[in-house]
């Protein structure tokens, strides 16, 4: 930020045509980008007659009926789907946070044989396209007989720190924690476990929060894995249930589909509002430097 400041003072006294054009371009761009979101929110309150083709954001006739109808569109209500999504997301958050933190501590702080090799492999798995692994993983889980209990294939991989991105994020974070603290704790008689518990864990809170937020959002939005493992209607999460609307698409269910879509986006949107600055500046910048 300090680097930018002098730049600004130079330009300040000529709020010029250039600045105005820049602002205008940004505002038009922003309207364009936000239009689909505004449109779907508005449309979820429109009457059936004007729903699909009305390009205006605001409904001429305001109705809440789609929310009530949408909630009970299927044999199982959305209450269940939202509970399922929440349970899976929260368990994933916990599993990711704990397992990745533990692995990151080993990589960032402890010296053990073959650490370099394992670290290189961990970085390699960062580039591994996760969706491709779905077929072989499915076969393994199927062989283990886990397919009938969908929580196992969805959560166990996360509890085993397979989300290398978070491991990497936390390693980078821990490298910024002064080693003097570890050493002081060691001199005071702490074992590596004690150092982890008393020094690293409390200081890693920001990295844990970032991991938790992104785990939640990604799991909430996840579709591919849930599509593969969730086969019973009662087990469906919100995205899988939303997909059911395609099969039943007619003009009549469009409003219900929009209403449930809006509700499905709501948790992520609330996270965005609460942690906007952190989401925008946190994870991406910290992942940038290698």
């Amino acid at each position, binding site marked *: 930020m300090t680097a930018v400041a002098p*730049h600004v003072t130079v330009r300040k006294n000529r709020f010029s045509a250039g600045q105005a054009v820049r602002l205008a371009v940004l505002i038009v761009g922003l309207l364009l980008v936000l239009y689909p979101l505004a449109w779907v929110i508005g449309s979820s309150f429109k009457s059936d007659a004007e729903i699909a083709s009305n390009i205006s954001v605001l409904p001429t006739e305001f109705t809440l009926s789609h929310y009530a109808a949408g909630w009970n569109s299927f044999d199982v209500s959305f209450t269940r789907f939202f509970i399922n999504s929440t349970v899976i997301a929260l368990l994933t958050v916990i599993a990711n946070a704990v397992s990745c933190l533990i692995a990151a501590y080993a990589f960032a702080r402890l010296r053990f044989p073959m650490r370099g090799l394992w670290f290189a492999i961990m970085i390699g798995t960062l580039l591994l396209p996760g969706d491709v692994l779905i077929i072989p993983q499915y076969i393994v889980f199927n062989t283990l007989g886990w397919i009938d209990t969908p929580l196992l294939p969805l959560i166990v991989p996360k509890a085993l720190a397979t989300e290398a991105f978070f491991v990497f994020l936390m390693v980078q974070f821990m490298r910024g924690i002064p080693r003097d603290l570890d050493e002081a704790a060691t001199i005071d008689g702490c074992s590596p476990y004690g150092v982890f518990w008393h020094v690293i864990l409390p200081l890693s809170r920001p990295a844990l929060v970032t991991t938790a937020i992104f785990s939640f959002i990604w799991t909430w939005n996840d579709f591919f894995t849930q599509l593969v493992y969730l086969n019973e209607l009662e087990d469906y999460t919100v*995205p899988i249930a939303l997909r059911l609307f395609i099969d039943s698409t007619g003009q009549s269910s469009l409003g219900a589909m929009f209403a449930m879509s809006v509700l499905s986006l709501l948790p992520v949107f609330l996270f965005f509002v609460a942690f906007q600055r952190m989401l925008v500046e946190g994870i991406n910048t910290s992942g940038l430097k290698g």
Partner: protein
Amino acid sequence: MALTTASAPVVPEQPGRGSPVARKRRGAGGGRGREGVAGYVFLSPWLLGLMGITAIPMLLSLYLSFTDYSVFSTWEDVEWIGLENYRTMFTNDPQFYRAVTVTLGYALVMVPLKLAAALAVALLLNRAWRGVGLFRGLFYLPSLLGGSVALALVWSALFAGDGAVNEFLAFFGITGQAWVNDPDYALGTLIILGIWQFGAPMVIFLAGLKQVPVELYEAASVDGASPWRQFWHVTMPMLSPVIFFNLVLETIRGFQSFTSAFVISNGNGGPVDSTLLYTLYLYKRGFAEFDMGYASALAWVFLLTIGILTIVLFSTGRFWVHYADGDDR
């Protein structure tokens, strides 16, 4: 913001403070060994995951790609068919070629446009002024929401025959069509949905722009360089590592797109296979037709392609990526 401390340089260990160093030398046997054990204790969940969730499934699928395994087969009747799956794929599977073409077309158009949009908006938002944070946040929002089923549903409604996009075009006297149902345009709607999520690379560009020293621009200004020349001779070279980072990341992500194509085509890659992205084809063969052996072969070809592509990207990177200080990466 606290996270930026992650990029702070590692605090150097200071020798000569006596006891820590002494301890380390002395502890070659005792202390180190204990640390070594602790290292593996802490690493064990990750190691287990690497073996059980990544390595073993990968090797298993490599084996199965040479068989006719389906979900229903018991392990006894899995039959080794050698390279048959791969041979079929390359010589006798038009859908495979279709999937490759569609995926390449999607990625080659979407990624450059997405990065261009990201860079353009990042340049506009680079300077600090009141309210810039809000703009950054709102441009980033689609990246958080765009990959969801909900947005794919919104997209298919927007680009439907009687959808809002056509209403908008009618305003200018243009008669649109059912974009998502037209084999010539369906992939285009997916590309637009991809570009719409330019916020994530934009944020990374912003972080990169922050690191370009202001003095360089000042020097260029003094030398009389126009903004356009400053962009090409200062911004672009200084930003090239970040462009490269984004290019690799977005290309790999682009190749893996699944949700939007699945939802918009209702799971079949239609109309006329025009949105049959590779992952979608993989899913169809594996989970709709239960051809797990063949799907495993598809997965391995995909994996190798992405691996080769990454290597190619990295080797071309040497020619155009400029690292200001070699030790930074």
